[in-house]
């Protein structure tokens, strides 16, 4: 296995992936924009704390400004950034991806078509990920999902099961339980649905899942958000896909039940300590990704002429937080309900 692999945009998820692939003996180059993190990786490697494994490993890491001097040529690029960093990072790494290379998006939201428009459809593969991790100190990651409790699904954009998809499955199996999906868009939308239900409201409230769920009515709100997503997804032509390693049967029941099952599975995997990414972003004073989660649902709904009051409300509050007009706060639960009510009546 002498393929040259890059992991680009290495926050908590990318660092976890880069460390595991390096640990598995692959030729891995980590490329990131955060100077202190790159410095730490260069001098001390990565330190990944999992619940069942403490991994300390030297890695090959470059700051992105070094690429013009290093001039590498990669066979596989795993892009692990936030969705708002999709287009420029794809443009950035494009000159360093071999003509017959592959870019795999290990991201949330629906970014595969963006990648395809930049890198070329034939060089783009999607991958749904369920990996919870946090980084606050350069070089050091707290990974909440163990390897066997992390779930990925690789899929060609046209749904074919190719040799390439199988090879990527094999590579990524060093990081997570990895499936191949013949319905990457459906799987992406299903993951987006769960993200909208959890990352969105828990993010703007600034609460861990278990804390948020103690609020009366919270679970119903999660389900309402999820139902909107599913309706919009169906109208947009996406077919819901079992994710997180759940079976067809788990996804066969009444819709409320399916949504609750998916949410509960996610929480079991990530554990009680994990904080959803927007909370981490807020602590770091960085922009959150919710414009590409509830914001995307809300945008799609508008295009299709379907009401999505709950996603609209969460997206609106997330925007205010990103603009610095609001802080995350548990009291935003009432604000979500109020804004949604207004949207419904308007």
């Amino acid at each position: 296995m002498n393929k040259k692999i890059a992991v680009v945009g290495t926050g908590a998820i990318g660092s976890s992936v880069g460390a595991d692939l390096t640990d598995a003996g692959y030729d891995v180059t980590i490329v990131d924009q955060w100077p202190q993190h790159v410095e730490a990786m260069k001098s001390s490697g990565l330190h990944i704390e999992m619940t069942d494994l403490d991994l300390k490993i030297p890695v090959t890491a470059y700051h992105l400004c070094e690429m013009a001097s290093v001039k590498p040529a990669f066979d596989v690029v795993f892009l692990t950034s936030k969705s708002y960093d999709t287009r420029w990072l794809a443009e950035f790494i494009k000159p360093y991806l071999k003509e017959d290379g592959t870019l795999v998006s290990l991201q949330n939201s629906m970014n595969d078509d963006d990648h395809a428009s930049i890198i070329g459809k034939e060089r783009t593969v999607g991958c749904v990920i369920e990996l919870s991790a946090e980084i606050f100190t350069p070089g050091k990651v707290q990974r909440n999902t163990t390897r066997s409790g992390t779930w990925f699904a690789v899929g060609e954009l046209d749904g074919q099961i190719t040799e390439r998809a199988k090879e990527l499955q094999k590579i990524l199996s060093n990081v997570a339980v990895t499936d191949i999906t013949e319905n990457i868009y459906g799987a992406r939308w299903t993951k987006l649905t769960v993200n909208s239900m959890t990352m969105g409201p828990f993010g703007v409230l600034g609460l861990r899942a278990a804390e948020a769920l103690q609020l009366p009515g919270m679970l119903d709100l999660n389900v309402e958000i999820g139902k909107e997503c599913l309706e919009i997804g169906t109208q947009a032509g996406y077919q819901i896909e079992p994710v997180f390693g759940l079976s067809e049967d788990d996804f066969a029941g009444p819709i409320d039940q399916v949504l609750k099952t998916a949410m509960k599975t996610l929480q079991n995997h990530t554990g009680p300590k994990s904080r959803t990414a927007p909370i981490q972003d807020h602590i770091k004073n960085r922009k959150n990704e919710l414009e590409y989660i509830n914001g995307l649902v809300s945008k799609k709904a508008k295009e299709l002429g379907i009401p999505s009051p709950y996603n609209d409300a969460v997206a609106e509050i997330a925007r205010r937080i990103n603009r610095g007009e609001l802080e995350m706060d548990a009291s935003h639960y009432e604000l979500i309900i109020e804004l949604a009510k207004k949207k419904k009546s308007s």
Partner: protein
Amino acid sequence: MDKKIAVLGAGANGSSIAADLTKANLDVTIIDQWPAHVEAMKKNGLDITMPDEHLQIPVKAWHLCELAEHVPAFDIVFLVAKSYDTHWLTQLIEPYLKEKGIFVGLQNSMNNQIIADVVGIERTIGAVVELSSALFKPGIVQRNTARTGTWFGLGELDNSVTPRLNLIKTIIENIAIVELSQNIESAKWTKLICNSMTSAPIALTGLKNHDARDLPGMFEIAVRLGREALEVGRALGHEMQPIFGLSAEEMSGDSDDILIKIMKTLSKHVGPNSVTAAVHDHIKGRKTETININGLVMKKGKELGIPVPCNSAVTELDGRITKGELTMGESNLDLLKSMID
């Protein structure tokens, strides 16, 4: 003026520009990718040595990874990067450019279409830049062209003269002599012709501009490169435009004379100590912009069926130096001659 201005890409030129705009009391934010340079700017500001002035000035500088912290909204973005960094940097900054903002590429080569595809043609203004400078140590720049010897051309892509074009002109006048162009794409191609004649062939030798210029055969090679670039430009609809402050009259007459004139004017402005950027890049082991200069002439020439042997050979040799297969030296000139004769 209360406009929020970003200078995106702070190499030697970007740093020179940002320092002058900051000195003019404008609200300027520098955004760059080189961590050590950003650190130096944060700590000590910028230090710009010009032929007639030594400017030390505190500046506001961010590393590009800080954009997601500050979530700014800019009225004006000046992109001052190498051409090969155009697309991704434009994508990076697009979310932070106001809806009615203005994006100006202060670069070589023909990047306006790439920029307009990302930010929209209605937010794009074109520019020709003649500013020579070098940056080796974080925070410290040697600028070879004095403000009065630095020349910028500005133009709307639809060739109209608008209030916002005049606004940008007023801002840029803090850095350089500015003229408005009503044919900015052709003016940019004229600059590209000049670059094709001087940058890459000089960089093959690794010498200072003035030393390389005087090598036997260099002058003839430059003129051949220029002729090819001129012919390709004409086929694309670009007649040479007055640049570098030359008048329309000075730019009329025999085309070889004009090529020689623009080359000499550039050489005079940048002075005897200047070293072309491609030499700096080769020294640093970085990609040069040659692929976007001579390489663009080669690509367009091939598409149009116009022979471009000289630009093709220069592009190839430059690529071999970048790959480490060849080192800079005077003998490369003989190698080049053997490829084109």
